[in-house]
């Protein structure tokens, strides 16, 4: 069916009621399929491995009429600036990048949050130079934790597909209206074929309504729009500083307000398997999949271990994590980065955080064999810490 004849439906219908069929596709193709139904006004691309294919495929959607505008930017900083301009003008936007591209664009991310732009983008996480590598590594997520963006972390292509579709409605709520980053581990998901349940009904999400924005969008005909929307901090006085401080607080508050919408679509911020076990593994992204295998191996050896999958990193589900770990005697946190940012997050919200055995941590593109997780659980081995 031509794109302009698709029926507009609510996000709730799209996620929970629309007809789906199982397809065997890559994570990049899952991004394309989510974008097909998302009623995107403009997508802007710049290639960087392992993200390139995703936005290339979104470009195919432009050719097919599913995305209204599409072009390749000059570099990642330009792309994120152009996306900001489009969002300020009141249209639905989408882009993606990863690793060094994320860092090149970085100034834009807190600016997006501060400007209250409901941009949805995907990060296909990758190693940061030097030395140069294109391989999977989630370290860029640690840099993005305090930009004011919301952050979801997909375990697999199905998560990626559903999280992208729900993100538009969450980000575009009047009380939220800040950017959402949907993160997925590069290559492990983007370049791997998996079974994904894809919406096949001829439907698309309802369009974005800029009239419900909590800030004025670009409208040269109607006051109060001004090119400079943020408060100037050009005076050395309490008033200008207080205005900026209050503005920053409002951005943080917006992420808290998103919780009700995230819960509505995601069901919960965490998933808990075998919650009564004395040993609990806490993970996000593909580290969850590896941990599932580790739990099976441990069970075969008579070791009782549970698993907490954290789906949302910002706003961080501190209360949920604290409650889920209340009975744990030992906590293992496997991660695909050297800094252990998830370990820090968990340690900051639970009492007696000496229960945490850090790691295993692998990085630089290394894989995480389940045997390594088992080794840390059983022996407290130091792996990459």
């Amino acid at each position, binding site marked *: 069916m031509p794109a302009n004849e698709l029926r507009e439906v609510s996000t709730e219908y799209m996620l929970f009621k629309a007809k789906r069929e199982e397809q065997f596709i890559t994570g990049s193709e899952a991004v394309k399929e989510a974008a097909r139904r998302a009623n995107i006004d403009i997508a802007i691309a710049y290639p960087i491995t392992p993200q390139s294919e995703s936005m290339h495929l979104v470009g195919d959607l432009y050719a097919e009429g599913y995305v209204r505008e599409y072009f390749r930017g000059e570099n990642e900083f330009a792309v994120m600036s152009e996306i900001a301009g489009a969002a300020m003008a009141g249209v639905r936007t989408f882009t993606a990048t990863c690793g060094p591209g994320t860092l090149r664009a970085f100034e834009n991310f807190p600016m997006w949050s501060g400007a209250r732009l409901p941009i949805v983008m995907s990060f296909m996480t990758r190693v940061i130079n030097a030395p140069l590598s294109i391989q999977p590594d989630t370290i860029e997520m640690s840099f993005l934790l305090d930009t004011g963006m919301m952050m979801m972390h997909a375990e697999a292509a199905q998560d990626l597909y559903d999280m992208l579709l729900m993100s538009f409605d969450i980000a575009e*709520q009047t009380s939220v209206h800040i950017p959402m980053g949907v993160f997925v581990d590069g290559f492990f998901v983007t370049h791997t074929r998996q079974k994904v349940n894809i919406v096949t009904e001829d439907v698309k999400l309802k369009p974005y309504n800029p009239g419900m924005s*909590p800030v*004025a969008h670009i409208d040269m005909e109607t006051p*109060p729009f001004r090119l400079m929307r943020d408060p100037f901090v050009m005076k050395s*006085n309490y008033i200008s500083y207080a*205005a900026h401080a*209050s503005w920053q607080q409002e951005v943080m*508050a917006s992420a808290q307000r998103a919780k*009700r919408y995230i819960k509505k679509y995601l069901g919960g911020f965490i998933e808990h398997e075998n919650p009564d076990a004395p040993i609990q593994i806490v993970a996000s992204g593909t580290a969850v999949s590896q941990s599932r295998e580790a739990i099976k191996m441990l069970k075969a050896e008579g070791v009782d271990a549970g698993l907490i999958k954290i789906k949302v990193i910002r706003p961080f589900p501190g209360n949920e994590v604290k409650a889920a770990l209340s009975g744990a005697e030992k906590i293992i946190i496997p991660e695909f980065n050297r800094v252990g940012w998830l370990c820090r997050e968990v340690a900051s919200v639970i009492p007696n955080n000496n229960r945490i055995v850090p790691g295993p941590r692998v990085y630089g593109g290394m894989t995480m064999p389940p045997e390594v997780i088992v080794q840390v659980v059983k022996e407290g081995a130091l792996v990459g810490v």
Partner: protein
Amino acid sequence: MNYKVLKGPEGYLPPAASMHGVCLPEKDEAIIEGECVLRDVCIKHIAKILLEAKNPTFFPGPLVIWRTTDYALERGRLIREIAKETEANIIPMPDYRPKYPMINPAVEINPNHPNLTIWHNKIDVGIFIGVHCHQANLALKIIRGGTDCYTVALCAEEGHEEANASLRDADNNTLKTLLNVIREMKRGDV
């Protein structure tokens, strides 16, 4: 939820209410001092606050004063009727540009330094309507931090946890309801 969104002055940079467990109201609810209540309860509360105030003041924002649709014009008329019924002043927020040090606090209010207008006019109850939600929250928090003004937000969207009292989905029918409740209270019928 322990945090109460009370009348100020709360002090130096008070927290954002939602960071301390205050949630926006659901449909058919409203919020008073951080607690979700039924919408009708809040309408009566706002009516009472307005009638008991010494110097209540409406702050209509750009979404009312620069719009020329029939809906916006009716909204403006309803604001004037409520203001007349409660002997309230009207001081507009025409735009969001900071205007220090030259703002004339007698004639306008600004979200970046709303305290100047509150102090200058000795406003004890301030009612925000037609202000974009982001700028409304900036102003509400600064007012709560530095003044003793009781704040009310009549929000057409999801409401404001930074206000002392806030309605959500406050369309023109809601304003008519508020007007009727005020009139009933004045007659002693409520």
